[in-house]
Structures are given as structure tokens and as C-alpha cells.
């Protein structure tokens, strides 16, 4: 997998720029689009069920780097799984989202993980397991411990969120970015044989439209 990286003109510009593709996967109605919408617009509302895929772009000016973040939001229904692989192609990160008030959705997230494991090597992709809808605490079917334990055994990042009440949404996206940057650093310190493609970032065409 090609890490799309722009090192900038390293002499004049100390901060490197990275472009990352993140894909949101999970059952239908677990809140994938709502997480993206909360993160991008800091708002919550009823969204159309995603058909195919929709995109969000975010540019983050961090201390250590400029990160262009492309978020690919996918349709959750099982029937659409056959086309979903098109969307996570070349992804650098994935959020596997489930609904804490619906146990089945965790099983589905596990299946997604198997799917990703078939297509990516562990160091090729950062995966976070996200238990969404903590606002539905009264209807909880999956304990925090259960989610956390599963994530730990599989080496995934883990966080519980609520897109509705804006709980830890920004945090989970930031945790993924930090992990991606940590891996960048690690790789820089021990250069691998894998070639890095240097790609010029397009003149900041920042799209924050959602469908």
C-alpha cells in the first residue's frame, strides 16, 4: 500500500504534510455518517442513509504536521458489502463502528475486521473500534469492557462515543491521526524497503460538503 506523503520542501518547511484516507465501516444505523457529521460540522441531525459512499475532507494543522484527512463514509447494509471493498481500497485508517445498544452490530464489526485483515497487513492500516451511542446507556447491550477487551486482543484503538451528545467524537478521530503520525515517525527512523510515493497535495481543495 502506498502511503501518500508529501514531505514538503524539507529545508524551508519543517512541518511535513500527510494525506490520509480513513474509511468508516459498520452495520446500518450505527451512526457512521453521524460521527463524520459531528466531527466535520460539530452538529447532529437525522441523516439520509448512505447509499454507496460519501466523502468528507478535513485539513488539520497540527504542531508536528499538516494532515489532510479524507473521510470515506460507507453504506452499512449487508447487501452493499460486495461494493464496499472498493471504498476501503488504499485506506490508511478505518473506524469500525458499532452501536452499544445493539449487540449484533459488534459481531458485524468483527466480520469487517476479518475482511480488513484479509486485505491489509497489520502495519498498513490503523483500525479503531468505536462503540457509538453512549447516549443510549439505558439500552446498552455491549459493555465497555467487552468492546475494550476485543480491541485489545486484536491490537485496535478503542473508544466509546456519542455523535448525538458529542462525546469523544473528536477524540477518536484525533487518536487515529496521532497513531498514523506515530507510525510515520517510527517508519522514518527505520526506513523500510517499501517505496514511498511522493505526491503533491492538490491546492487545498477542502471539501466539507456532505450528502
Amino acid at each position, binding site marked *: 500500500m502506498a502511503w501518500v506523503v508529501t514531505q514538503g520542501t524539507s529545508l524551508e518547511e519543517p512541518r511535513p504534510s500527510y494525506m490520509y*484516507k480513513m474509511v468508516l465501516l459498520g452495520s*446500518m*444505523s450505527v451512526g457512521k455518517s453521524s460521527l463524520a457529521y459531528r466531527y466535520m460540522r460539530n452538529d447532529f*441531525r*437525522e*441523516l*439520509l*442513509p*448512505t*447509499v*454507496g*459512499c*460519501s*466523502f468528507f475532507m478535513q485539513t488539520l494543522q497540527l504542531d508536528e504536521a499538516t494532515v489532510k484527512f*479524507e473521510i470515506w463514509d460507507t*453504506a*452499512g*447494509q449487508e*447487501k*452493499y458489502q*460486495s*461494493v464496499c471493498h*472498493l*471504498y476501503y*481500497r*488504499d485506506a490508511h485508517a478505518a473506524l469500525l463502528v458499532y452501536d452499544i445498544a445493539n449487540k449484533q452490530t459488534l459481531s458485524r464489526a468483527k466480520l469487517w475486521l476479518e475482511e480488513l485483515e484479509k486485505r491489509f497487513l497489520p502495519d498498513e492500516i490503523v483500525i479503531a473500534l468505536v462503540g457509538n451511542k453512549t447516549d443510549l446507556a439505558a439500552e446498552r447491550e455491549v459493555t465497555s469492557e467487552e468492546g475494550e477487551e476485543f480491541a485489545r486482543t486484536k491490537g485496535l484503538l478503542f473508544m466509546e462515543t456519542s455523535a448525538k451528545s458529542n462525546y469523544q467524537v473528536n477524540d477518536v478521530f484525533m487518536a487515529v491521526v496521532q497513531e498514523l503520525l506515530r507510525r510515520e515517525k517510527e517508519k522514518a527512523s527505520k526506513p523500510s524497503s517499501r517505496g514511498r510515493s511522493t505526491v503533491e497535495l492538490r491546492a487545498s481543495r477542502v*471539501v466539507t*460538503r456532505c*450528502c
Partner: protein
Amino acid sequence: VFQIDLGKQPEVSRREPVSAEEWAKNMDSEGRILDVDYIKRLIFKGGLCHTLRKEAWKFLLGYFPWNSTKEERANLQKRKTDEYFRMKLQWKSVSEEQEKRNSRLRDYRKKDVNRTDRTNKFYEGEDNPGLILLHDILMTYCMNDFDLGYVQGMSDLLSPVLYVMENEVDAFWCFVSYMDQMHQNFEEQMQGMKTQLIQLSHLLRLLDSGFCSYLESQDSGYLYFCFRWLLIRFKREFSFQDILRLWEVMWTELPCQNFHLLLCCAILESEKQQIMDKHYGFNEILKHINELSMKIDVEYILCKAEAISMQMMNCKELPQTVSEILGIENSSATPDSDTGEDESGAELSCAASLYQSVPTANGTRDGAQQAAETQSLTPA
């Protein structure tokens, strides 16, 4: 590679939407439509004015037979109303416990319905009557088609229909007819989607093999980026008002079969330059196409697609696969849009020449009329 020359793309103009007077003038005293082909042709060229939609869509979708009288339609509606409420009662009387054990019903209950077209006034706000109807119709559809179950995207197809009908029963039966056309898209293996993508690639190759080769070089030859267009007939690509126009034009089944695929070709051809100039790769193509949503001019794209249809129908060396997809020459395959409701007469009356003379602003119709002669045997 041998390249078929399609010639220059003809200029096409569109007309005003069909007015209430035009519609009324084409009806006899018993409410029978006099010249079905003529009226379809008018609708194809200009769509319908909004007040007419509630009535005309019932014909276009196949709920009302074209040759029926007003009285026959009233009887049909009465019968269909009973039938609808019988099916509705079936799910209404399912207990909570029963529902827990029925995954199909549970799926239908999921929140999706509440997420349909919420920015449209008709479906705005909590506990909106429009939303409740949308939900009830989809639940009843489950009783009508147990095997299909609920698929994301179905409510997209229903919402404009319900918006126009403003009536639960009529909307349901029109939706049933529409789903008869769209059913395959939603089936387990998505066979309808696969078939359409293959057909689209045949058409696009004929139109622009260079672009096709480019897409192939970017691993995009399967045209998956058109998935959403095809699945829900462009519902997410245009504004709600534009979709009403686009759909009624498509439902005329003019000027050929699978006109929606030519609409895809028209949009793709409009984007080709940018895609190739900027050398977009797999991800960028997907993204670019996705972001066209709400940016396409519906009248422009209808003109372009019609022009492409004329190019293809005038082509003397049209590949067999393409003529079969478009249903021209004496092809036997035609889209199946009728509901099977006492329509034997309607089918006959539709089989006449598709191109009656239609008054248009300029004389650009010659090509189409020529083409019509070659396809006048196509059953509609």
C-alpha cells in the same frame, strides 16, 4: 481497435411541461386517453406541470391502464384500496413478540424511514404525517413482497412518489409498480446492478472508447462510481424537484429502452475532460463523481442523453449488444413495467410508432424521426 463513427451529436431542444389543458384535450368524454404515444412523447420532451403529476404518474408508472375510462379507474382504485388495507392490517396486527422473531419486519422498522428527505417540507420535523405514511407504506410493501425485505435506498424511491400522490393507497400502488422495474437492483446478489453496469460499459465504449480505455487504465472500467446513480435512479444526484422531472421523463420509456443508461453516458461524457486532464485515479474518480451531486443541470443532461440516443439509433453499424440494450430493431427484450393489471389493451395501443409529430421549437427532430421508423415495432 475498430471504432464506429457515431457522427456529430445532434442539437436537441426541450419543450415546456405538459399543461393541464393539453392533458385534458387528449381525453375523451369517458376519460380515456386518446393518443397515448403523443402524450408520452410530450412528457418525454418537457415533463409535466406539477398539478398534473398526481394523475399522470399513475399512468406512467402503470397503476392506471392507459386505455381505461374514468369509471374503470375509480373501480380499480376502490379494489386496490381494499387490497392495500388488507395487507396493512396484516403487519398492524403483528404483536411485539412476533416482531422480535421476524427479522424482515424488524429491518423495516429500523430508523431508515425516519431519515428520508428530511429537508423537504413534506417530511420535515418529528412525527410528521408524511413520515408516518412513508413508514406505513414500506411496512405494507414488506407484506406485498416478503422475499425482498427492506433495502437501504427503497425509501428514496418512495418519497417522491408519496410526495406527488399525497395519498397512501395511490402512493403504495405506484411504488409497487416502480419497484417492479427496480426490484433487481435490490435483490440479494444485486444482479440488476451488475447487469446495468455491464450494459453501461457497452454503451460508453461505443460512445467513447478512448475514455473507456482511460477508465480501465485507472482500474475503474467496471464503472462502480455509477453505483448510486443506478441503484436509486439518480435520486441523490438531483434536487427533489429535478428528480420529479427526470423520473417522469424516464417513465415514458422513450426514446428507447434503458434511457437512464444514456443519462449516465451523458453525465460521464460531460466529466470526461476533467477526469482525463487531471489524470484522476481510482479514488479521485469515485470522489469526483460522488461530488457531482446537486451540480448537474437536469435539462442539459436530458438534452445530451437524447442527442446520444439519436446518434446511436441513426448509426448504421450499431453493435448487436447495443441495439439489444436500447431495444431497437426487432428486439424482443423490453423493460417490464406493467403491473399485470388488466392491461392487455394498453399494451397493444402502446405498440404504435413512438414518434408522432410533436411540435417543437426548431427542426432538430429529423434524426429522431428517422430513428423512430426503425424502432416502431418495439413494444412499449
